[in-house]
């Protein structure tokens, strides 16, 4: 049975909602300079802690900076970390998982061992530890998060490649003496499309979450805007009314990004898992 997975995702309500949310956040991040006349660190002429108004949609913070602008630029950081980790970590997963399945033997066993051990490591802890010593920037964050999130994906890719390897077109290519890179990138990856996207979404979600959490802890690049940092900062002023347009919108933006990613991921996974498919049939009438 041929299933059009993309169609199924865009058809389902959950998938639609997720894609719309992601699209919205990406648009906010990309068009940030168009959507706001200020720059995130600019000290405007409006008094500090002013309420939302025509000029300042979400008011100003203690340093007279425009909160709406900071929110937009925070989206850029979150999404670029998410996107960067998704790409890098999936790439490593494919490379390790794919080659482990193709080569097999000792090489395979070695890498699976590494995967098993890395999965057991609590990742937040390692990142906090490393970041406490090396002052982190965005690139280091992406590298660290990717280094800790690839093993889960590598396991999945290996399992998929093991079955794909036996398919006719792959064994035909092998007979013709195709190199492993040719096999991997020309024959195996194209067949893994939806699974790779599902993995990327999962990685991105985790990365966005971790970036916000770590910057909430104060572990972040001081030169960039970040939602976690904004919330950490705004939290100090909960005794004032400002939390309504400072703390809440920031947290909501972060949550909506995460919800968008998990909804899309959920729709994709239910489309991919044959056991969960078939919304229409209900077991109650089924017997």
């Amino acid at each position, binding site marked *: 049975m041929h299933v059009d997975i993309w169609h199924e995702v865009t058809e389902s309500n959950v998938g639609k909602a997720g894609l719309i949310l992601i699209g919205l956040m990406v648009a906010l991040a990309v068009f940030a300079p168009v959507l706001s006349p200020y720059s995130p660190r600019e000290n405007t002429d409006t008094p500090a802690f002013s309420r939302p108004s025509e000029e300042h949609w979400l008011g100003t913070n203690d340093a007279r900076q425009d909160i709406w602008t900071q929110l937009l630029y925070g989206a850029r950081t979150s999404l670029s970390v998410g996107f960067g980790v998704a790409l890098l970590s999936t790439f490593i997963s494919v490379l390790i998982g794919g080659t482990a399945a193709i080569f097999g033997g000792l090489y395979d066993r070695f890498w699976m061992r590494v995967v*098993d051990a*890395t999965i057991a490591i609590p990742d937040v*802890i390692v990142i*906090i530890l490393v970041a406490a*010593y090396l002052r982190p920037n965005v690139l280091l964050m992406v590298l660290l998060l990717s280094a800790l999130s690839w093993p889960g994906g590598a396991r999945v890719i290996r399992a998929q490649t093991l079955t794909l390897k036996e398919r006719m077109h792959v064994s035909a290519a092998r007979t013709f003496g195709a190199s492993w890179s040719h096999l991997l990138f020309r024959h195996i990856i194209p067949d893994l499309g939806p699974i790779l996207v599902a993995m990327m979404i999962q990685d991105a979600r985790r990365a966005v979450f971790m970036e916000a959490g770590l910057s909430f*802890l*104060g572990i972040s690049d001081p030169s960039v805007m970040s939602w976690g940092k904004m919330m950490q900062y705004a939290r100090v002023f909960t005794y004032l009314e400002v939390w309504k347009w400072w703390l809440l919108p920031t947290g909501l933006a972060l*949550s909506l990004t*995460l919800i968008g990613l998990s909804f899309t991921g959920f729709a994709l996974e239910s489309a991919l898992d044959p056991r969960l498919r078939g919304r229409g049939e209900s077991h109650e009438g089924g017997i």
Partner: protein
Amino acid sequence: MKTTWAESLMQDLEMRHLESPKVGWDVQKATAKILAFLRRGALFSNHLIAFAIILTLNFLLPRMMPGDPFQAIYGEEALLAMTPQLKAELISRLALDQSMSQQFVAYIVALASGDLGHSYFYNQDVLAVILDFLPWTLLLTGTALVISTILGFILGIESGYRRGSGLDKTLLASLMFFNGFPDFFMGIVLLLIFGVVFGMVPLSGALTPYSGLEGLPLAIDILHHLIAPLTALVLVRVTSAYLLTRNTMITTLKENFILTARAKGCSEGQIKYRHAGRNSLLPVVTATGLMIPHMITGALFVEIVFSYPGVGWLLYNSLLTRDYPLIQGILLMVTVAVLVTNLLVDLLYSKLDPRVSHAR
């Protein structure tokens, strides 16, 4: 004959983690026995390797920093106020005046005797400081883990059993929505709503200081402080157990034994919980184990929001005061906790699964 047997054994061992746990395997008793043993051994060594990696990181990071490793270990601020005697004592304790390999040996020996270093900020041994704060974290994480697993399990069964119904859709949508909230934001929202706006829960701490309460009033006071952080954690973390139970439930309901149960005339409740539910329990237990690291990190963040005096709050403050020995000690303790619980869950798993325990 022997070689093929060993080969199939190895293959089975390799394939093991690819299969979902519910796939039944009809291998000979003896094979299963060896397999279970090997599997446990492999699992144990994975945790050991992970632990070794963290240890090495803990050891190497401060020593790889440019400049004086002593300064990297204790932080600049602490160094300024330190007396020469204390400094000399700490240097000899860390064996910093010796070669790298000797330092490593000293580090491991100290760890083995429970010496995690000296917190300059608290002027106490790191282990003692952590042990002061640990009970609150255990209380918060433990209750959150138990409640969210049980709640997720029950909701998952009810939701999966009535797949596609209004209840199922509402539960699915709302729980997935809550799951999107990072723990600390959920904590902030609850704190703002119930603490700041309604004034129903205390804004910080784990009990009322100097209240002199004892017995039942004290327990109620602790519960009163616990309820908001606990709710935040459960709301965010219940989803994974829920989704997993729901998915397993949907698959299990298609099995033949459900049909048999219906034919026997079992009541709905019996089918739900004794037949389908019990079979959905295994993956949930495994997932609970996998959830523990997330639960602990979640608790760290929630504690910060509620100024709940647990290890997370301690970690946050030690990051602020740059109390490096304390940071290292906390991270090491958390790692050990996570690894040990994962191992325990795996042992529990083989107890729960009659197929595995039968093989032993």
